[in-house]
C-alpha cells in the first residue's frame, strides 16, 4: 500500500508536467484550431536558455523568471512570423508548419548545445517527506504547477485581456466587432503557451536530464492527456495530465517496464476514448446543417 501511494504521488508530479504541456496545447487549439506539435521542442529550447543563464551565475529563480519572459516573447514572435502565414490556409499546411518548427528547434538545440546529456539543477532538494510518501522535489513540482494554474485561472476569468482572449477564441468575428484585436490575442495565447511549456521543461529537466530529445516523450503524453480530457477543455487537460501521469507510473511499476510502457499507456487512453470519443470533459462538436 505504501509503495502504491508512493507511485501515485510521484505519478502526480509527472502528471503535473503533462498537465502543463497539455494545457498549453489546449490553449492553442482553442484559439487557432491547431495542435502545436512543436510545443515540446519549444519548451526544451526554453529550458536550455534557463540552463545557460544558471550556468552564467544567475540565481535559479531569477533565471526562471527571465526564461519565462523570453519564452513569452518568443512565443508571440513565432505566432506572428511563423504561424500567421498559414492561419487561413488548410489545416494540414499549419500542421506541417508546426512539425517543421519541431525539427528546427530540435536541430538548433543539438547544434548550439550539442547532444551531450546535461545536468539541470532543481530548486527543490530531493528529500523524502511525509514518511517517504513523497519527495520535496515532487511536491515542489506540483506546487509550482498549482501556482501557475491559479494564476492562469485568475488571468482568464478576471482580467479584461483574459476575457478578450476567450472571446477571440470563441467567436473572432464578434470579437473584432467589439474592437478586440484578434491577431494580438492569438499572439498572446502563443506567448502564454510558450511560457507554460518553459515552466514544464524547467521542472522536468532535473529528472529527465537535459538533452535535445528530452521533451519527445513528454509531448506525446501531454497530447494524449489533452485528448483524454477533451481537446477543448482546459480543466480536462489538467485532469487528463494527472490521470496519465499516475497511470504511466502504475503501469511502469506493476505491469510492464521500459519501452512497451508507452504503448500500453496509450492503449489504455485510447480504450477510454472509445467510450468517450470527445474526451472526458470535451464537448461534442455540435454541427448545424
Amino acid at each position, binding site marked *: 500500500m505504501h509503495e502504491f501511494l508512493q507511485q501515485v504521488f510521484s505519478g502526480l508530479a509527472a502528471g503535473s508536467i503533462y498537465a502543463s504541456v497539455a494545457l498549453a496545447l489546449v490553449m492553442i487549439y482553442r484559439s487557432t484550431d491547431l495542435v502545436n506539435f512543436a510545443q515540446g521542442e519549444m519548451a526544451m529550447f526554453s529550458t536550455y536558455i534557463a540552463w545557460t543563464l544558471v550556468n552564467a551565475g544567475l540565481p535559479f529563480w531569477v533565471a526562471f523568471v527571465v526564461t519565462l519572459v523570453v519564452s513569452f516573447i518568443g512565443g508571440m514572435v513565432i505566432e506572428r512570423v511563423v504561424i500567421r502565414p498559414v492561419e487561413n490556409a488548410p489545416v494540414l499546411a499549419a500542421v506541417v508548419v508546426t512539425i517543421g518548427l519541431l525539427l528546427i528547434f530540435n536541430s538548433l538545440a543539438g547544434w548550439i548545445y550539442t547532444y551531450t546529456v546535461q545536468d539541470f539543477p532543481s530548486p527543490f532538494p530531493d528529500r523524502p517527506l511525509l514518511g517517504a510518501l513523497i519527495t520535496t522535489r515532487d511536491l515542489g513540482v506540483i506546487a509550482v504547477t498549482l501556482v501557475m494554474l491559479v494564476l492562469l485561472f485568475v488571468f482568464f476569468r478576471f482580467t*479584461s485581456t483574459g*476575457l478578450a482572449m*476567450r472571446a477571440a477564441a470563441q467567436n473572432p468575428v464578434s470579437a473584432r466587432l*467589439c*474592437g478586440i*484585436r484578434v491577431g494580438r490575442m492569438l499572439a498572446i495565447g502563443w506567448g502564454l503557451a510558450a511560457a507554460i511549456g518553459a515552466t514544464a521543461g524547467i521542472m522536468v529537466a532535473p529528472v529527465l536530464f537535459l538533452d535535445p530529445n528530452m521533451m519527445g516523450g513528454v509531448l506525446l503524453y501531454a497530447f494524449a492527456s489533452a485528448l483524454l480530457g477533451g481537446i477543448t477543455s482546459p480543466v480536462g487537460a489538467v485532469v487528463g495530465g494527472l490521470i496519465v501521469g499516475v497511470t504511466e507510473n502504475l503501469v511502469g511499476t506493476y505491469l510492464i517496464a521500459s519501452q512497451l510502457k508507452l504503448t500500453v499507456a496509450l492503449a489504455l487512453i485510447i480504450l477510454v476514448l472509445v467510450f468517450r470519443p470527445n474526451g472526458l470533459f470535451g464537448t461534442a462538436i455540435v454541427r448545424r446543417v
Partner: protein
Amino acid sequence: MAAILELRAVKAFYGQSEVVHGIDVAVEEGGMTVLLGANGAGKTTTLRAICGMVRTEGEIVFAGKRLDRRATEAIAGVGVAHVPEGRGTFIGLTVEENLRLGGYTRARRAQANMQRMYAYFPILADRRRQQGGALSGGEQQMLAIARALMMEPRLLVLDEPSFGLAPRIVEDIFAIVERIRKEEKVSVLLVEQNASLALELADHAYLLETGYVVASGSAKSLADDPQIRRSYLGY
C-alpha cells in the same frame, strides 16, 4: 442635416465576385436610415463593407474619417457599432461578460455603461450570470444591442434585428431602438426585410436590388410608392 456616414460609389466583393455595384448611401446624423431589399440584394454585404469585413472599392466616410481602408477592430473603436446578422452572441460567456466585451474599447466608463444597459433591459440584469447561449432569441437580440451600445457609438448598425423573432418581440425591440436613438443621440442604419415596420420608424430609406440602389428617398415617399408597396409591402 449633415450625413454622419456616406458611401460613395462603393463596390463590395466576395473573393472575385462583385456583389455590390457602386452604390451611394448617406445616413443623416441623429436619424434612422433603412436599407430594404429581398434576399441576396446586398444589404448585409453593404453593412459588412462599412465594417471592413469584405473587400471594397470606393469611399466610406464616417464623421469626416475614411473607413474603407481600416480593419474591423479599428472601425469599432471609432464609434461604429455593428449588431450582426444572427446577433453574434458569445454563447459560451455570461451576459455580463458579453456586455464587458462590448465595453472593451470604453473600459473606463464600462461599469457605468453596464448599469445603464441594465436599466434599458431589465431582463438582462435578471440573467446577468447566465450563459449567452441560454437566452431566448429576443433576449439575445437585446443583449446584442446592449453590447453595441456599450461602445458608446455614434452610429448603430443593425442587421435584421427582427430575424427569427415573434412579432410581439419585434415590436418591443423596435420600440427600444427608437427610444435609444432619441435618448442616446445615436444615428441608426438599419437593414430589414420587414419593410412595413422599418418604413414606419425610419426617416430615410434605400431600396436595393441585386447590388444596385433602385430607389431612395424619405421613408414616407417609399412607403407611398405603389410599386414598392406591391413588391415589398404586399399590398
